[in-house]
């Protein structure tokens, strides 16, 4: 079989437009990590089971390892690198809450966890604990037992709602 032709891919990542020439078999994870140098999304398994590659595609959490880059042509992708305000360097309130509430240990699941939490809070700004746990049900964490991750999401929700000050 002849080598498949590369395709031109127009992709918006973290608000920046990219025109890329890639093989059609490339996953979004390969493009993010290898073409764009955005290594915040990890490959924990490559088969959809762990959630460490989770990014937001048009606001919804998705497995970058199972998504063909060709299939997100024209979409807007948000990775962990794009969450904080690049200009003032401050952490996004959800990132800050994960730091303050000790929701991070080894950190390998953290980018996917935080982005999944963002999608949840965008849709449902005051989720109860069961809703948080359900929203995170595809994000595997081996370190924390999820307790302080749930605390972190709850803290972020309160801060985003203005119910609690960020120190």
């Amino acid at each position, binding site marked *: 079989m002849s080598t498949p032709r590369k395709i031109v891919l127009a992709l918006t990542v973290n608000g920046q437009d990219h025109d890329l020439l890639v093989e059609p078999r490339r996953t979004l994870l390969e493009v993010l990590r290898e073409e764009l140098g955005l290594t915040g999304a990890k490959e*924990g398994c490559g088969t959809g089971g762990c959630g460490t590659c989770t990014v937001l595609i048009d606001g919804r959490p998705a497995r970058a390892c199972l998504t063909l880059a060709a299939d997100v042509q024209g979409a807007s992708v948000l990775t962990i690198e794009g969450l904080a305000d690049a200009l003032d360097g401050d952490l996004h309130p959800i990132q800050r809450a994960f730091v303050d509430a*000790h929701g991070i*240990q080894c*950190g390998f699941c953290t980018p996917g966890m935080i982005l999944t939490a963002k999608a949840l809070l965008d849709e449902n700004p005051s989720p109860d604990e069961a809703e948080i746990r359900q929203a995170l049900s595809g994000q*595997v*964490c081996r*370190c*924390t037992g999820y*307790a302080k991750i749930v605390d972190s999401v709850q803290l972020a929700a309160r801060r985003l709602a203005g119910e609690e000050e960020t120190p």
Partner: protein
Amino acid sequence: MSVYVGKSVPRRDTRLKATGEARYTADLALPFMLHAAVLRSPYPHARLLRVDTSRAEALPGVRAVITARDASGVKWGVFRYTRDQEFLARDRVRYIGEEIAAVAADTEEIAQEAVALIAVEYERLPAVFDPLDAIADGAPRIHDHAERNINIHVPIHVGDVDAAWDACDHVHTEMTRSEEESYFMTEPYAVLAHCDRQGTVEVWMPNASPHTKAKGLANALELPVSKVHVRHVAIGGAFGGRSDMFPGEYITALLSRKTRRPVRLVYTREENSIAVRQGHSMVVESRFGFKKDGTLHAVDVTCHMDGGAYSSTGPIATSVPFLCFEQTYRVANVRYNGYRVYTNKPIRGMIRTHGRAWACNVDMQLDLAAEALGLDPIEIRLKNALKTGDHTPTQSHIPSMASHETIRAVAEASRFREKWKRLPPWHGIGIGCVSVMSGFPMGIRGGSAAMVKFDEDGGVHLISGVVDNGQGNEGVVLQIAAEALGVPIDQIQLTASATEITPIDQGAYSQATTLVSGNAVRLACEDARRQLFEVAADVLEASAEDLELADGKVFVKGSPARAVPLAKVVRSGLLKGKSVIGHGSFGPNVDQRREWIQNPKGQLSAAFSYGSAVVEVRVDPETGFVDVLDVWASHDCGKAINPKEVEGQMDGGVAMGGHGGILLEALRWHEGANLNTNFLDYKIPLAPDMPPIHNFIVEADDPVGPFGAKEGGLSISMCTAQAYANAIAHAIGTHIREFPHTPDRVLDTIEAREGTEDEAS
């Protein structure tokens, strides 16, 4: 009054992890870097008749192919007497996944394609996959040196067990079995190595002891240790599964040496599951004898562990489940025969809840004895628990141990005694207790050292070999340093786990970091303060003993106006040729003559922590599913340097040891092939699975630990496993002898019990 110790300071590294800035090994790239892939044996046991790499070498883009012919032949094993593994198989493969050859190429895809072009001729050999089968007559022999495939035998006998049974009023024998558990740290193993023309090797990989890795790699590459630089990198979890040497780093370094280019090897999840380490499966036979009043009088345990194809940490792995028992309960007569057996399965190592069949067997025995003797589970544990000042059977003195306090904390919070035998049908409550050591004798690499130096502007550099796998070790030493120096934590820069700079450290296993590395840091800071005060004493015309450091100033105690800024002290020291550099070195007071097999007695560890947990469950009698209603966990970790981080360790322990370990996790097999190597098929608990966890930190300040600190977390992983199993037994009216207690096993046990009752009625 402490400023940092005992405070839940947010960890500095987590800012990098929250933003994606933290770099793990697979995130790193060097200019001109090549990519590696490994050819692994698809067969559990075979002779290698021919390995032909010519087609792989001819593939465009391939820069090097290596096999055992390129390797030094130095064998790895943690001890001199356990060196049985070559990093590239020479003439025989002993498990599915064993390394045979490796390729470095321009891209990872070319490397993988080249691996597929290596032609190997195998002569299949009979294989054995169960430790009891492996010791039976006629079993295939896996190593020529190991009769009956016995890799390690740990024999321990204290008192006179055979004579002790007569003095017992209740004697009972139990057999338990557990399948293998697996680490499933979220980061798959990866290595980046660069051998340059100066003959030095720099290498990055997730590890639990950079200095151990540097020494092992230096041995295998036949280089001095000074030529091997293991670098700092973010690490995505360990749980015991990053502790010793793996072929990955040797192979990557060898490929780099051959190509003179940086080489990166990133394992797939499957490779991480089968070709790094797994937990041991175990068969545990125990005989426990108690006196009428509940005193534990005699214990005899025989354990067969499936060690897989090579030794790894064998003698330690074979001993630790026994040690955790003998540190927990007092017993005058005890015998242990631990056998680690070779099989044609992947290599087994230490894991966070090492020995669930062992630990849960002990608690099963205690509950059954309590029942027979008319005691309750709390009483029998309080009666037998070791405590501060006691000695273990193998002669370790226990400097601090709040065993009774942790037991009472969870018993009271859970209202255990009100609930015991009074819960509604299919509800159950159970307790488990365990003590874990803070480090054990590790010879020349059993201690830690640290340095503290000052910048001319008063800033501080702390240099320590400590490694952080995610548990927060870097934060711990920073908090200790800030406290010991009297300098704001934000002004301290940490350089850690970079072997060309950092002094020796024992590594992040056996729970030694806080105690051993923490003490080295504390001593370095105290030394630096002493030097600072000597300089400042001249400036302030005061006596060094009268000085204090706070708020960036050195001042005379009681006269804060007589002060000089820290930066000025440092600068005046520099003018006098007195650069302030503090040194600290700490070795735990353990008996270095103690040896795992030849001499298993003497002081094992400088400190012993304790954990107790109570778990309440509701079992679904139709499906066997266990709904965990609450977990209460109580931990004597000594002083909690960072309480929220200790809680994080406890929460994680409940998830891995208790919920995963007892309800979900087991490796499954087909003729030596691991069927569940990925996150979908190996069931680690998810967020909605986890119960509410109520943590209680009991601080029995340790006389040796820095600021009184010992170990955080491991005790909880083990004792919740024991409590989960006992709670299920209470709910269904009988113990389950096989671990984990998956729903199918729970349901089978319920039905078998109902069948027995039907027959009886």
